[in-house]
């Protein structure tokens, strides 16, 4: 481009074409950016917490119900405003440990959380015409969650707990269906379902309550199981052949000094302080020395294996709500193993897992996977998914299970579990009074696990239950006196139709 090279200067038609191409290129840039935002980055923007659209869509229609015994325990009410529908609960506190909550401000937890896609209608399985619905943006009505809960058992559990700090888990042993799941003190999940200032205040008050009403003690809290764990130890000892006849004298000495220490393992009752006590008597009287000794004789590996067969050390026990991991240490010295074998030291269990222990014994050694949901249906009632019973583990042989059932029956007929006896029914149980706190100074945890069936029935017992009272104000805190009556009420509720 020199001054005298004007002949080579591009003509105006060429520059005009270039300028036109430039303008069209700008439009192409816009199209590219639109594609980027609307297609490639869309998910990120749609999921952004500050984007209200998903919430508007979610609350734009009634949420599907959660049913107990065929009756909905939840509802949905139109409130108007940008978030139209809010969750309601027919009997919030009773079923809070089952449903969890669904709040416009604070999200969805437990069943409301795990089954959220179905309840809110976004679950793909609700789509008959997925592609067509995606195009028309048709939103399916929310589906229904049918729980396994037995309303009578649930009410009995709540009435028995009566606001004390505690929890109940009840299971149908043959299927793993959860019949009751109660935690007290409870709360009303409907009190903060909306987004008003009253909802916010209710939430704040619940959060700051020192009694932790929103803690699901049946699923999400572990407690030292104390003597109820002796059922696991007995099953392990029998399976390992350490004991073959439950009525024959054992090799347990007295006093039993914890291996490698000078500390004797003490008993609560003098009747235990006999050398060579048989397993049946030791269980009925809940003798620490005998069961601690048998745990050590059985050995760490076999104790761990049996405990894990009952659900201990499982970090992903989803019912479908995830239960907290129950613990039985996998590396211990023999004195620690002795303490762990009577449910102390680091041993800790959720009420759910202790119910699995009772259920596994009742179901002839087969532990069924615990399930809270029976089936999922569409709004028109057609089935989306049917939950089938599935085995979790075989914890012991049916023969050993028969021996442990006998041990547990003896506890109720002859031992510490007397308050759980039900006329006309065969009841097997085990008490537990777990020490905890600094130098065991805190109020002990009162436990009871049991199962029951009509007298003379040869079927698998229809109910197994675990009860824990965490912080009783009673003067005499024992599993037999505090927890057994609650277990009895729950079992009776299931046995009497």
């Amino acid at each position, binding site marked *: *481009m*020199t*001054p005298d090279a*004007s002949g080579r*200067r*591009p*003509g*105006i*038609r*060429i*520059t*005009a*074409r*270039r*300028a*036109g191409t*430039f*303008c*069209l290129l*700008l*439009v192409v*840039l*816009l*199209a590219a*950016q*639109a*594609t980027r*935002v*609307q*297609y490639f*980055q*869309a*998910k*990120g*923007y*749609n999921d*952004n*917490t*500050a*984007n*209200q*659209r998903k919430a*508007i869509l979610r609350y734009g229609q009634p949420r599907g119900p959660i049913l107990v015994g065929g009756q909905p325990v939840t509802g949905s009410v139109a409130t108007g405003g940008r978030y139209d529908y809010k969750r309601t609960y027919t009997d919030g506190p009773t079923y809070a440990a089952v449903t969890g909550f669904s709040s416009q401000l604070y999200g969805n937890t437990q069943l409301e959380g795990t089954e959220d896609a179905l309840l809110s209608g976004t679950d793909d399985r609700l789509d008959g015409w997925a592609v067509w619905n995606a*195009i*028309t*943006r048709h939103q399916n009505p929310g589906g229904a969650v049918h729980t396994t809960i037995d309303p009578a058992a649930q009410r009995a559990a709540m009435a028995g707990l009566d606001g004390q700090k505690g929890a109940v888990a009840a299971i149908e042993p043959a299927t793993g269906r959860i019949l009751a799941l109660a935690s007290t003190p409870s709360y009303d999940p409907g009190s903060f379902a909306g987004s008003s200032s009253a909802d916010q205040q209710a939430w704040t008050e619940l959060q700051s309550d020192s009694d932790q009403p929103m803690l699901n003690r049946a699923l999400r809290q572990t407690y030292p199981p104390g003597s109820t764990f002796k059922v696991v130890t007995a099953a392990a000892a029998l399976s390992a052949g350490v004991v073959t006849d439950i009525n024959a004298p054992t090799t347990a000495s007295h006093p039993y000094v914890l291996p490698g220490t000078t500390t004797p393992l003490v008993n609560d009752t003098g009747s235990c302080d006999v050398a060579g006590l048989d397993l049946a008597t030791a269980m009925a009287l809940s003798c620490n020395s005998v069961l601690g000794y048998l745990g050590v004789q059985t050995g760490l590996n076999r104790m761990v294996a049996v405990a894990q067969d009952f659900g201990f050390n499982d970090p992903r026990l989803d019912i479908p709500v995830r239960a907290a991991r129950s613990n039985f240490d996998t590396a211990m010295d023999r004195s620690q193993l002795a303490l762990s074998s009577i449910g102390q030291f680091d041993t800790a269990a959720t009420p759910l897992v202790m119910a699995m222990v009772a259920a596994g014994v009742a179901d002839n050694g087969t532990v069924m996977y615990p399930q809270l949901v029976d089936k999922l249906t569409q709004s028109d009632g057609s089935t989306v998914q049917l939950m089938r019973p599935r085995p979790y583990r075989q914890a012991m042989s049916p023969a050993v299970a028969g021996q442990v059932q006998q041990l547990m029956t003896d506890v109720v007929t002859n031992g510490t579990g007397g308050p759980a006896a039900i006329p006309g029914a065969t009841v097997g149980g085990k008490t537990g009074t777990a020490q905890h706190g600094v130098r065991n100074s805190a109020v002990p945890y009162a436990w009871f696990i049991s199962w029951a069936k009509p007298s003379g029935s040869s079927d698998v017992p229809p109910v197994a239950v675990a009860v824990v009272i965490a912080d009783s104000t009673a003067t005499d805190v024992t599993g037999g006196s505090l927890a057994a009556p609650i277990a009895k009420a729950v079992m009776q509720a299931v046995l009497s139709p």
Partner: protein
Amino acid sequence: MAFPAAVAADRPRSAGPRPSSGRTVELFLVLGAVGIAVFGYVEVGAELDGRPPADALRYGAALGGLALLAHLLVRWRARYADPLLLPIGVLLNGIGLVVIYRLDRATPHSSAAPTQLLWSTLGVGLFGLVLVLLPDHRWLRRYAYSGALVALVLLVLPIFFPAVYGSRIWITVGSFSIQPGEFAKVLLVIFFAAYLAVHQDTLALTGRQVWRLRLPPGRVLGPVLLVWAVFIGVLVLETDLGMSLLYFGIFVVMLYVATARIGWIVIGLLLAAAGVTVVGWLSPHVHARVEQWLHPLASIQAGQGANQIAQSLFAFAWGGLLGTGLGKGHSILIGFAAKSDFILATIGEELGLTGLLALFLLYALLISRGFRTGIALTDPFGRLLAIGLATIIGLQLFVVAGGVLALIPLTGATLPFIAQGGSSVVTNWIIVALLVRLSDQARRTLLRVA
């Protein structure tokens, strides 16, 4: 270049059948455009109320009547005009009215659609007036300099009126407000075209060589620098980055087309960059816009909720490929200016990427038809005028759509024909009228009819 035009004009009309004017095609396209707009109007009512709006027929009749009137005016006064220009104008205007009506339904206390329809009517009226009063575009050349003076006055005027939302670009009298900058840009393009048509050879062939770039001679650089100063002045005093960029871009593009001098573009870009940097540094208003563009989600992370850009992106993203359908989106969450600067977000959300690309295609068609007209014309003034007008639409689309899509910093500008705003819609109809006039001339030359 003016020589062949004279030849064409003197050539006797060719024998045989008269060449097709394209008016019948235009009529069908116009009717189709009206049909699409009325369908959209009915769709909004059906979605929000479960039945078509009660005045759907009246609305359709009004829009159809206006469009037919415009078509007849073209048939009468610009028989050989490009048959795509008017239908695209009608369709864009119709879509705009539908979307504004839809947004009115989300803001019960302010309805903008009736006013917009009134302005559209005025726009079509001016469209006809231009066609009737201006039989030959070359007449505009005579008034180019006085027009530029008027444009300057129009640009400066808003400084004396209170700022609205941080920008001094409105003249407000009572409840009535106009944006004089919209009209000014057409007058300026006419001026640029006239100025460059006369001086293009001087600008192209003289000046100093610096490295590989030919710099313009000082003598003609004067007016260019003056124009630049005016724009920066407007930018600083009225804090209207969008308008300023638009003026500057149009000027640089027209300068390049006229002179083919890359040096001009380089200088232009450097000056623009310098101006924007300085203003971005000095003006908190502009600085904030740049920050929001770079980090649209920063305010969310800071716990202050989503800003307008973020809300706009949310709206686009929610639309996805196919959109929610008219009336089913939530672009009203954008808040302020949802019907004007951010109206594209509603289209993106409710009509999806598909609708948005179709819209961009319409604009691309309008722009390319403008450039085609310019290339086909033989007189330098008409050629530069057509290209300048097409460039207005292209750059304005880029500035506003790029802003709400976070491609470039957001600057206040209206989406041609669609956004709420009387001055804008009227100006766009004038632009289309001028393009119709120019294309009539161009196609007469091509088709060799007088």
